């Protein structure tokens, strides 16, 4: 009895503790929401109060300033194509690396893995220099860069997973006369579903939110900016030197809405993807 009671008290205590942490996790986001409906002076003077009126004025004007409906489409297109490229290239190469078991394959795999330790800053300037000379300082170039930077991690994840996929099915397919592509896409790829989710989730998360690479590649070119770039430049230009909170809050708010909605619907996959990705390392 007492043990059970003790346990119950423990449970309640744990709940209280975790709920407090959850509240402090959400607090800055709540702050973001309520301040998206206020004027600059109202934000600075009474930052934690509810807005005096729930007018969409600031949200609408922020949406216009960051060209929301255009930039979200650009960001989506970049993320989608980059991730597609990554999934295709890394799954194929990881698969053939695992299966061929040659020294070259092992060497390549080690190379890919070691490259995870190269910080972006040490390739940044030469990379831009080279892409400039190739005429690729534009969105296709950006996508290729994402393909390169996401490759190590993705190959690594696929490689670890494919090792545990039995080879017998593939042999049967070859005997049936399938060519290597048919075999890969019809037989192997469906088996990689769970790790593909991981690769998609991990890469989408950083590509969607990335700021530095688009900044260096696209910069302030009109009409091709991603969401994070629009946000950055909107802050820069509207308050030339200060913080235009009545723009920043609603702008950040609208940029995170799609992510949060997606997260709420797909959280099972996202969380599973993150865990698989981490644990497989």
């Amino acid at each position, binding site marked *: 009895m007492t043990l059970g009671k003790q346990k119950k008290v423990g449970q309640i205590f744990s709940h209280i503790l975790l709920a407090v942490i959850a509240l402090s996790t959400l607090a800055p986001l709540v702050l973001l929401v309520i301040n998206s409906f206020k004027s*600059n002076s109202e934000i*600075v003077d009474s930052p934690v109060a509810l807005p005096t009126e729930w007018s969409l004025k600031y949200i609408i004007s922020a949406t216009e300033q960051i*060209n929301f409906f*255009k930039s979200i*489409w*650009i960001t989506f*297109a*970049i993320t989608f*194509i980059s991730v*597609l*490229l990554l999934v*295709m290239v890394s799954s194929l190469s990881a698969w053939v690396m695992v299966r061929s078991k040659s020294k070259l394959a092992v060497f390549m795999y080690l190379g890919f893995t070691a490259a995870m330790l190269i910080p972006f800053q040490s390739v940044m300037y030469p990379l*831009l*220099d080279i892409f*400039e*000379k190739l*005429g690729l*300082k*534009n*969105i*296709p170039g950006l*996508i290729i860069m994402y393909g390169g930077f996401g490759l190590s991690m993705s190959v690594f994840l696929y490689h670890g997973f494919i090792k545990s996929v039995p080879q017998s099915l593939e042999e049967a397919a070859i005997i049936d006369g399938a*060519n*290597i*592509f048919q075999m890969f896409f019809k037989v192997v790829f469906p088996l990689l579903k769970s790790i593909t989710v991981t690769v998609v989730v991990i890469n989408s998360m950083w590509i969607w939110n990335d700021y530095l690479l688009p900044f*260096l590649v*696209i*910069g*302030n*070119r*009109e*009409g*091709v900016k991603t969401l994070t770039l629009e946000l950055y*430049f909107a802050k*820069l*230009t509207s*308050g*030339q*030197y*200060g*913080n*235009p*909170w009545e723009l920043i809050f609603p702008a950040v708010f609208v940029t995170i809405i799609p992510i949060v909605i997606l997260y709420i619907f797909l959280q099972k996959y996202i969380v599973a993807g993150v865990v698989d990705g981490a644990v497989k390392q």
Partner: protein
Amino acid sequence: MKKTKRILSLLLVAVMVFALASCGSKGSDNSKTSSTGSEASGAAEKPTATGDYDLYIFNTKGENADAMEAAGKAFGEEKGVTVKVFSLGSGTNSDDTLRTEMNSKNKPAIFSTMNSQALVEWVEGGFAMDHAKATNEEFKKLVSEIPEGFNLTDGTANYGVPYNVEGYGYIADTQMLSDLFGADKLDSFLAAFKTATYEEFEAMVHTLEAYIKEGTAGTVTLSGTDFATAAEKTGKATSLEGVFSVAGSEKWTYGDHFVNIAVDAVFANSKAASQATLADLEAGKGAFKAYAKALDLKTANATTERGPELINATTNGYDPSVANFANSKAIFLKQGNWAYENIKKANAEIADNLTFLPVKMPFTQDDIKVEGLTVDHMLESIPVFVPNYYVINDKVSDEEKELAQEFLVWLNTSEAGQKFVVEDMAFIPYNADPATTSAGYSLGDSIISYIADGKTLTNAYAGAPAGWSTDTFGQYMMENYVNKTEWTDADYDTIADYIISSWAEMANLS
């Protein structure tokens, strides 16, 4: 084997094409890159292949993007050529983008740079064209007539044509001054202020501070004339919270423009400053101490108490400081004519009543090291300087260089070109005749009146080592003094010594 390769390359191509189609076409309508005169190119990310323009202008001022494009178009139509204008958004660091363009095949024929420090890169890299190499006679004449102080030089040759001139000082709202001292006294007050000594100015600040904080009426003496405050606060004076509105978190306000007044007392112009010796700098100690004293007075009598609060970017950044002034919470705001639009945005009704008053520092004649410069001139003048220069790129074709020269001549001398400069860009031309030019807005006209009176200073601080002013000295002031409540006499010495030592170190002087 062949088949797989083909499929793969097809896949890659498909992906690329999709990327181009989905993003490129979407982006073109709103682009500020445009080729005028011929059919605009479709892709927005990059002006397409060579040869779709005859002259490429890279404009760093985002504020005049539209006007510059119109000017390029007008010039193109007049000459029957295609002009491409690229403008960056305002507030953007243009260096990275300009370097990108310089690395590409299609280099801009006219680009811009801010001062002689930024010029070094383009001279060293062989990009900036020496005016001695000019081929166009009219252009040679144009650049020979640029006033000495407005030249962009590396010490041996000249490279730049000024965009315009700007000026700064204490911005005051004349309606506020009328409410403080009586409308009938306004003109005599403004005249007396300009010639007043620093001691009179300092006493005035203290009197006004007491009037604002305690409501005690007083009398200020400027140039020997007495001006009594209204017994009770009336009109705009009722909302006052301090004498000065200070953007404490903006390092450049005291790291660039404010300290420049003291640097002006030591060096005649930025060229002289760039050739400073350690002895020159040490001789400037008196002037640098005067800077510290004047900054002390300003920040101690601001709308926000000096301390950590004053460097809070949220409450004491550029925008809040402009808003405080525009909403009559302070009498003076030390800023330039570029703040006009911001002030107007915050409170349109005061925009027409603005005027510049000189920034005063306690110099003695001994502190002033520039030959012929007097204490009186320093007290009465405001800095007027060139914020940006057009530079011609030596690495483009001779035809394009010739066209670039023609464009700059056209922009700065022809009636049509000047119309774009004065009306559409709202610039004060560097070669303006003060007798006939009107800026069309209060602060611009105020600058022109100082030019007409010959009461101007230079921007000598621009000759300091690159990265010294805002990022080294301004940062030092922000982190050690602007956030500190009490300043002592010893602090003045420390600040002056820091100016000398940090400058000397960065310029490799010993």
